[in-house]
């Protein structure tokens, strides 16, 4: 019984870690795409790079927010365990 709780606890911790990792991968992919496309469009139309930068930051912030949701859930699992 003791062993099982420790094991389950460990599995929960591991799940939290893996979950946080996956959330970060998602955010990284998303923000990377946003940044890449923004750079591409800035190179294409340097005259509107200010607007593009602002929108890029907004989009990156939204993606980041979604990733934070995931990470906070993982944190809750890890800390509750």
């Amino acid at each position, binding site marked *: 019984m003791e062993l099982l709780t420790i094991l389950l606890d460990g599995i929960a911790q591991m799940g939290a870690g893996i979950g946080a990792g996956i959330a970060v991968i998602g955010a990284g992919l998303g923000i990377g795409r946003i940044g890449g496309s923004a750079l591409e469009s800035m190179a294409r139309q340097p005259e509107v790079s200010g607007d593009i930068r602002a929108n890029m930051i907004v989009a990156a912030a939204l993606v980041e927010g979604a990733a934070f949701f995931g990470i906070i859930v993982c*944190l*809750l699992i890890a*800390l*509750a365990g």
Partner: protein
Amino acid sequence: MELLTPNIGLVFWMSLAFLVVLFVLRKFAWSGIISALKEREDFIERSLKSAEEAKALMSSLKAENENLLAEARAEREAILKEAKEMKEKILADAKLTASEEGNRMIAAARGEIEKEKNQALSDIKKQVGEISLEIAERVIKKELSDKGAQEALVEKHLSAAQSN
């Protein structure tokens, strides 16, 4: 877990401090700052606009001046040119009249000279004729006063006519 549970005390102090800052700054700072910024921007925009207008005015004035100057210059040139032409014409005219007068005077002088010469020549001819006649008269008178001489002369002319 503690990380994610907001502390009621902190929420209270934060709300208090932030709202106080918000209302105090809104009343005493932001309105003044924002309106001052706006005013200054308007002022700068106005100044720029008026400067632009002044510049346009200046350039139009300058163009006008230039026009006037060019006109004046053209006029001066025209006057100068006219004067020069006039001078040349007067000179040419003067030359022409002078040479004509000269020619006329020369011709007149020449005619006079011719006339005088002819007169003189005819006078001389007349005189020569008169003198010759006188001489001839005298000679004939003398010849005819001697009978023998008259006969000798006839003889001489006759023999000359025979030998011919």
